[in-house]
């Protein structure tokens, strides 16, 4: 359950974003600039969190009263093996070490909906976490690491779990709206696994950023699933993209190699936390 320390939104003193070159970080930086919120965004070029000296570097950068947004992670496209897991945990260890030395105003950890197993019922913030692979295990372990250090420092921590993010500028090419759009533009076709029956919750990057800004302003703590609450099948997404580009886009269905799984999210906690926030529909995106 998400709780607010600020009943009404208050501009943070300074936001520090880790993982500056990532999709979420870039968009968050743009929004903070537009809103006139003081921030710095740190990429691995400035502070390589895999380096043993990175904790010390971060300690020098972080100031008392900062709001820290942790987006840094090696995503599955960078590797799904044990070595990648250990690198991600090392990064978390260095961040945690720096946090221990600083009195932060708030921490937001960008986790993932991968921490939740597939379920016939809607997934919600109280759903048990379960590692299906090393990537989800990494996020579960990092959540625990940051909860431990935030607890010891009494720093408000928001665990922020977005569903499948789409939008212009996505650096990943995972199965979903972004890949469908690229493929439709380049190859005039969209290829689906099976008939694309799987239902998924797709959230636009602008909505993810809006929720992060609300979370910063309200100094929210707890867990928030950044979801629309409206699941669509991949086939529906592909059809909408094809229709938006006019005629001549083929939707091809390949034989499926795995069972159909669906993921629906219950957005009730998001509605309670931010009733003024309205996610955009994929049609408008």
């Amino acid at each position, binding site marked *: 359950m998400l709780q607010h320390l600020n009943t009404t939104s208050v501009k943070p003193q300074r936001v520090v974003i880790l993982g500056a070159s990532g999709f979420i970080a870039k968009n968050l930086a743009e929004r903070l600039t537009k809103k006139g919120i003081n921030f710095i965004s740190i990429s691995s070029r400035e502070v390589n969190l895999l380096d043993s000296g990175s904790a010390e570097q971060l300690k020098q950068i972080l100031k008392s009263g900062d709001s820290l947004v942790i987006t840094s992670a090696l995503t599955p496209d960078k590797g799904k093996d044990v070595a990648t897991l250990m690198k991600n945990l090392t990064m978390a260890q260095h961040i945690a070490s720096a946090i221990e030395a600083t009195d932060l105003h708030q921490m937001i950890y960008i986790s993932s909906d991968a921490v939740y197993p597939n379920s016939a*019922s*809607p997934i*919600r913030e*109280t759903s048990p976490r379960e590692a299906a692979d090393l990537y989800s295990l990494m996020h579960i372990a990092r959540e625990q690491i940051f909860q431990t250090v935030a607890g010891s420092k009494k720093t408000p921590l928001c665990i922020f779990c977005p569903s499948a993010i789409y939008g212009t500028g996505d650096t990943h090419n995972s199965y979903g709206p972004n890949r469908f759009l690229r493929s439709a533009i380049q190859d005039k076709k969209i290829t689906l696994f099976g008939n694309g029956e799987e239902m998924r919750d797709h959230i636009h990057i602008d909505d993810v950023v809006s929720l992060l800004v609300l979370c910063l302003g309200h100094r929210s703590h707890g867990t928030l699933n950044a979801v629309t*609450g409206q699941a669509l099948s991949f086939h529906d997404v592909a059809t909408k993209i094809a229709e938006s580009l006019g005629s001549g886009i083929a939707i091809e269905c390949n034989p499926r190699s795995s069972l159909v799984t669906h993921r629906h999210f*219950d*957005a*009730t906690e998001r*509605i*309670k936390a931010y*009733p*003024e926030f*309205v996610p955009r529909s994929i049609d408008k995106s």
Partner: protein
Amino acid sequence: MIAFIGLSHLGLVYSAATAAHGFRVLCFDPNPEIGRQIQQGQLPVEESGLSDLFTQHAANIEFSSDLERLRQCELVFYSLDVATDRDNQSDLAPLTQLVQHTSSHLPHDATVVLLSQVPPGYTRSLAADIQRPLASVFYQVETLVFGIAVERAMRPERYIIGCVEPAAPLSPAYARWLHAFDCPLLPMRYESAELAKIAINCFLVSSVSTTNMLAEVCEQTGAAWCEIAPALRLDKRIGPHAYLQPGLGIAGGNLERDLVTIKSLAAENGTEAGIVDSWLVSSRYRRDWALRKVFDLVLSKNSSPRIAIWGLAYKKDTHSVKNSPSVFLARALASVEKTCYDPQVKSLASPIPNLSFSSSAIEACSGADALLVMTPWAEFAQVHLTSIRETMRGQILIDPFGIFQEADCIAAGLSRHTLGS
């Protein structure tokens, strides 16, 4: 004379029903003010028919806080409702204190019957504490339902009686009282009777949860639960009185208390009770049905919405707001302008921002973008739909319990949204 010690809802309903069956009743409570107020016609609880019953049988009822009066009672019921906290855990301390305060004043040969809602093991330990022969101490399961408690007390389906020795004859005084109600008697050991009450509530919750889950499937698939439910009622394995009305989860405190108790027992004994967690998750999810509806239909389209709420009580015919879905809704919509009306609930112990109270149902609708009927009070169904539409700014009617007919709503220009279809 028969004494009822503890004048909360349970004690008042049973003492009135007992008087109505021709017995002389002593209503005892350490607080003399309660008796005085009742004698002046001010009942501390809202229960349909209870006030009339007290009036009609006043000649058989005496109120007292004098411990010495208990010495004349051959049959004594402990009838204090056991309150629950925010986590739905029972607070047994007031009941235990009441027993300790009074038990030494009971006649040595009196029969003692515990009516209060207690967990398995409580009656046996209590009997030992008050140093009375176990054969004279009984536990009787109460299955009253707020709103129809008088009816259920006057014409019970059965009596479940916890005894130290189920095969032994009941005391003459207790047997006389039981037989006056002319229903099946089921003597069993203390722990069985205590667990029987919890078992009944678990089955009710199971029905409620199953109904709500299937009702939501109906909402998504184009089926109508109101068409399916009659078919289930004719199935002997389900029955005509099964809980098949879709609702907003479990509320009121009693069912929740028993779920907490059964989870605690399961944890102590290593029993698999994951199903109870599922019921609780299902209940919370369904409780927020109206919130999700009002978000989709109003909040997502209107930056300064105004909401009318009919009903704050957790169900009709009661003043209780314990775990009320309506109160949860109002609290979740703290930043939204809300006007509410409830026939019984005129204020809340913990105020909710931007919530005002109206003096009538129709007044609450003034300028509202949506009306939410959160408690199906009978008087709400009497309000003319055209008046509602004319008073409101918008046309959204969120009517979870379906107190209005869809065709009538359409004719009045209202867009109705209900559970199960």
